[in-house]
């Protein structure tokens, strides 16, 4: 993932950025337009829109068909099991987020769920915690940085990763690094496992977003700005820990379009 991003996405991003240039700041005599410009905080909008189009092409050609096939081929209980396992594997990231934010109650929940789900829940396949009304939640380094007072920074759209901000992308990088450190350079089996997990996370997340995405494409006059607004609102909601108990342990921030992945049934 890291090497792929570094080798291909980095230079591609740079080239597109240079080609597309920057957003034009409205004149100072239009305070409302200026206010809106600041709220959007999207100085590289032309470049981001180009990236969004790139992502649309990749998504329609590859990701969406894979997600649809995944839904068609695997029965619902199997997909739920996979989602639960992936959520359980995120426990270390979530636990460190809980602790770094000083939220002991949520940290206890995360730890308890991890222990029970990993054992009685057979490696996380069954979300036993939820059955006892101890619902999961999501955390990531982007949220922690926000709780520490880091502003979100400018908006970005990264192909395959989706909407993000300078802060959330930094947080995502730290989370990936912390995960990768345990897996890579320690033999091929762990490396393959790392890629499998990443691939499954992408497919699972995209499958959960099939309907919301269809809806945005069908009903929005400008899907780019709809996603930008939805991402910001959803992140604010997650940072305030207001997710509804119906939500599953979603891969927030990074691969996940900042949307809550709903509870599987």
């Amino acid at each position: 993932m890291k090497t792929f991003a570094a080798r291909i996405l980095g230079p591609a991003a740079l080239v597109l950025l240079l080609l597309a240039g920057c957003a034009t700041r409205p004149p100072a005599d239009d305070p409302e337009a200026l206010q809106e410009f600041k709220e959007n905080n999207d100085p590289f909008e032309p470049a981001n829109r180009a990236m969004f189009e790139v992502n649309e092409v990749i998504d329609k050609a590859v990701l969406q068909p894979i997600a649809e096939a995944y839904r068609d081929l695997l029965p619902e209980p199997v997909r739920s099991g996979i989602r639960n396992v992936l959520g359980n594997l995120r426990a270390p990231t979530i636990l460190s987020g809980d602790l770094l934010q000083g939220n002991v109650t949520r940290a206890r929940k995360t730890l308890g769920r991890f222990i029970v789900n990993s054992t009685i829940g057979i490696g996380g396949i069954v979300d036993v915690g939820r059955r006892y009304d101890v619902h999961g939640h999501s955390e990531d380094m982007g949220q922690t940085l926000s709780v520490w007072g880091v502003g979100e920074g400018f908006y970005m759209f990264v192909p395959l990763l989706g909407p993000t901000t300078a802060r959330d992308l930094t947080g995502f990088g730290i989370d990936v690094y912390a995960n990768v450190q345990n897996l890579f350079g320690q033999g091929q089996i762990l490396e393959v496992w790392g890629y499998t997990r990443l691939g499954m996370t992408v497919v699972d997340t995209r499958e959960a977003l099939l309907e919301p995405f269809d809806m945005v494409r069908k009903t929005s006059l400008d899907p780019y700005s709809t996603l930008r607004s939805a991402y910001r609102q959803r992140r604010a909601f997650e940072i305030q820990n207001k997710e509804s108990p119906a939500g599953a342990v979603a891969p927030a921030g990074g691969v996940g379009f900042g949307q809550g992945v709903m509870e599987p049934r």
Partner: protein
Amino acid sequence: MPRIMISRRLLLAGLAGLASIPARAQQMDITRATAFVDRAGQDLVNAINDQRLNQTQRRDKVGSVLRSAIDIEGTGRFILGRYVRQASPAELQDYLKLFDEIIIRNLSARFGEYRGVKFSLGRSQQRTEEDALVSTLIERPSNPSFTLDWRVAEINGQPKVVDVIAEGTSLRLTTRSEYAAVIQRNSGRVASLLDAMRGQIAQLAAREGG
């Protein structure tokens, strides 16, 4: 002389009292808001799950329930935001008409798919002084359940829905951002938004017909 003073004072006090009445009337009572959402929600669910209706009838029924529950004009104005003042009176009138059609079509199409839907009230809380936020849980067979929050305000003495918030994402905020982007990307012309909206209605109509 003193009598005049007193009566003037009384008059002033009376005026101040009168002025404060409309302000108080604007406040949304949470119990009233919750009862309203409960009733509108049940009407909606009944329309969606009514076996006697065919698809067109169902869509019409859902549309009429939504139309009576939503403050379409106020929401439309909120979404157009600062461009309300830039639009000509004719453009604003066109906009509100198109917005009415789009919101009803989009929401009826979305809710129309929720066959077998169940709806229950969640915990509700008062948000601001003007409106109330009523939270509901939407459950569908073999689908994930999710929470939907309804922002309810007092409009001309009637409770009306002014926003729908799904898992933290407000429909009126995302739509405002969307419409503003369309106008800005077409050199600030409100007319270009109206064209885009007409195009969307034509597309929606074609899809519903097919």
